């Protein structure tokens, strides 16, 4: 899926596990990347209802007080954040009646609030459900949608009212 977007104009792929195999995150460089971009996409599997450890470490270190939040921390103000996640369970599992009892959006509250604290816009997430049973053909479909979504966001094709109206970004790309 990342292959489909890595060579797009205006889009930078920042693979944390590849860059920091020892979890030693270069804070200055990561902050610089944040400053240079308007939309931040957090793409990751939905491990234990949250992000993989390295992304949490990235949050801990990069989003410093005085940089991302706090009285003087306004570097990220007005930028958009978007979670792109893949889950093993299907959509039905993520509901009050389902095995996981809560919806994806409910699980994502810490991300949403982190974005709020940094004065950023948290967009509805794009979710790939049922990744355990996904077929190559379905991945192809998702890749195409992913690419379409990113270019649309890049080119400001969607009104903010449109973005606010959906629960998942998937709805806009269908």
């Amino acid at each position: 899926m990342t292959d489909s977007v890595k060579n797009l104009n205006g889009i930078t792929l920042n693979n944390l596990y590849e860059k920091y195999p020892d979890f030693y995150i270069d804070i200055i460089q990561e902050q610089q990347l944040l400053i240079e971009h308007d939309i931040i996409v957090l793409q990751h599997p939905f491990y234990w209802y949250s992000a993989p450890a390295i992304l949490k470490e990235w949050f801990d270190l990069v989003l410093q007080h005085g940089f991302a939040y706090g009285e003087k921390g306004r570097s990220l103000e007005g930028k958009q954040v978007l979670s792109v996640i893949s889950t093993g369970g299907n959509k039905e599992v993520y509901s009050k009646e389902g095995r996981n009892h809560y919806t994806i959006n409910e699980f994502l509250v810490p991300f949403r609030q982190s974005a709020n604290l940094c004065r950023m816009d948290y967009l509805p997430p794009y979710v790939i459900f049922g990744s355990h049973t996904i077929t190559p053909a379905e991945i192809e479909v998702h890749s195409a949608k992913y690419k379409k979504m990113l270019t649309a966001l890049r080119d400001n094709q969607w009104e903010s009212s449109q973005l606010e109206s959906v629960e998942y970004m998937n709805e806009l790309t269908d």
Partner: protein
Amino acid sequence: MYNQDFFFQALIYLAATVVTVPVAKKLGLGSVLGYLTAGIVIGPAVFGLVGSEAGKVMHFAEFGVVLMLFVIGLELQPSLLWKIRRSIFGLGGLQVLITAIVLAGLALLFNFKINRAIAIGLILALSSTAIVLQTLTEKGLLQNAAGRSAFSVLLFQDISVVPILAIIPLLATMNGKIDFSDSELNRITDMSALSGWLQLLIIIAVIAFIIIGGRFIARHIFRLIAETGMHEVFTAMALLLVIGIALAMDKIGLSPALGTFLAGVVLADNEYRHELETTINPFKGLLLGLFFISVGASINFALFIKDPFLILGFVILLMTVKFIVLFMLGRFFRLRKGYDYLFAFLLAQSSEFAFVLISFSKQNLLFDEHTAGLMLLMVTLSMAISPLLLIFNEKALAPFLSRKQNKTEYDYVESSDNQIIIAGFGRFGLVVGRLLLANNYKVTIIDSNPANVEILRKFGFKLYYGDVTRPQVIEQAGIKHAKLVILSMAEYDEALKVADYIKKNYPHVKILARAKDIYHAFEFFKRNVNIVQREVFDSAAELGEKALVQLGFTRYEAYRATRTFKHHEKQVLLDLYTLWKEDENRFIQETRRFSEQLSEMLQAEKDYVIHETDYAWNVNSIMEEAESENDSKSKGKNRKK
């Protein structure tokens, strides 16, 4: 003026040392040859600055040998000594016995009477402890097979000086010319008037005293003295100890060197061992130097000029006999791979004990003036020649032998389609190889150390004995279809050559290299080999990390601090490389290399400030803000976090 003469002599000896020894070292000749040359230069043969007293100086300076054996004893744990008992008595015993018999036989051919022939054989069979041990220490050879064997032989020879001293008067009586009386024997020891049993009892008592005193009492005395905090008293104590033992040994008729050696071994477990060693070392070094100088100065060139070819012939005959006996014994005791030659060359000269024994024989009228003079000259010349022989062995023979050996024994590397070649499978390559093997990769391993190959094969590693600097070996190893070549060999310059060869002929092959230091790493960078690992950097940094933990860092803090340091080092490295490239032609002296590297590295480090990574957990700014929020809370404003 007071003692002017003494100071003038001292001036000459010291000046000669300071001038010749560094030159000899620079030329790779070793210090012994430097001292000997110094002695010849200041001696009667050239400048004549020192004259007849050189002999007296020599006897005084022989104390250097005593000190040396003490220091060597300090480095030798008793258990280690016990381990080499077989080679002391077997190898040493056979060497003295066989050499003495052959030399005595030769002496008989030159029309010496049997008693004199035996004395000549025994005296000349000994080798020079001073020269051999000094050379071994200087070249760091005490630990290898040849060095250890030589040491065992020397130890036995030291022991055998005592019975030889006892035999000489007996041999003298066979001359029939003089009446052998008690007075002759009195010269050996003061206690010979006592009965044999009593003598033995005294000897045992003295040795027991040394062992018990050294084991149980010395520690407390040393501590008392160390507690005074006056270093010179400790020095005095150390010298007192050695001189005391030497005198006691002399009194009971044992070799002083042997006695102090024993004392050294007893003190090897002592906590003041190191202190003793550093205290004694300068005295030992100076006295030994003095000894070698006086040997050089006492070479009787007048006698030599009279009949140079005959004397030279004798010396060559003497050394050849000793060499052959030693070489055959070395082979018999399984010394191989050039060690047999080294061992034989090491011990082929005559001993400083010969000086004592020859003059003692002369006193006993066993030798006449002429024979004694001739023998002294032979001994001195053999001592002067022996460092030259060692240089010949080191520079010409050993390389030739190893080349010859290598040519015949290299393995044929079977062609295989392994994609990974590891060149050099020692301490470093082994780890790399194990990691790859553990991940189910097949590797072709080449190593140039036959002993290594043998051991690793026993553990089931598939590796070949070969020299990767030779193109056919690396071709056979399948460089054509290799993906990776890992240069983990310790032959650093050769590794660069291999890299050159591969880059030139197989540019597609990735090279991963082990570097000795940053300059070596730069050499690889220059060849476009960019995956380079400095062999000690990471381990050292990790030990530093452990130090931080001991200093109270949490393990994660220490880990992060080390990570920071390593990443920062990468940047320093790149900067230094740019600098280095700009000024590549700069001549860097090998000896200054390390300190230069250090100062450049520290300089580059100054230009960076290691940025505060853990700023994220630095809560100060948050606390400050929280405080100001609390202040404003009263105004009804409430904020999160």
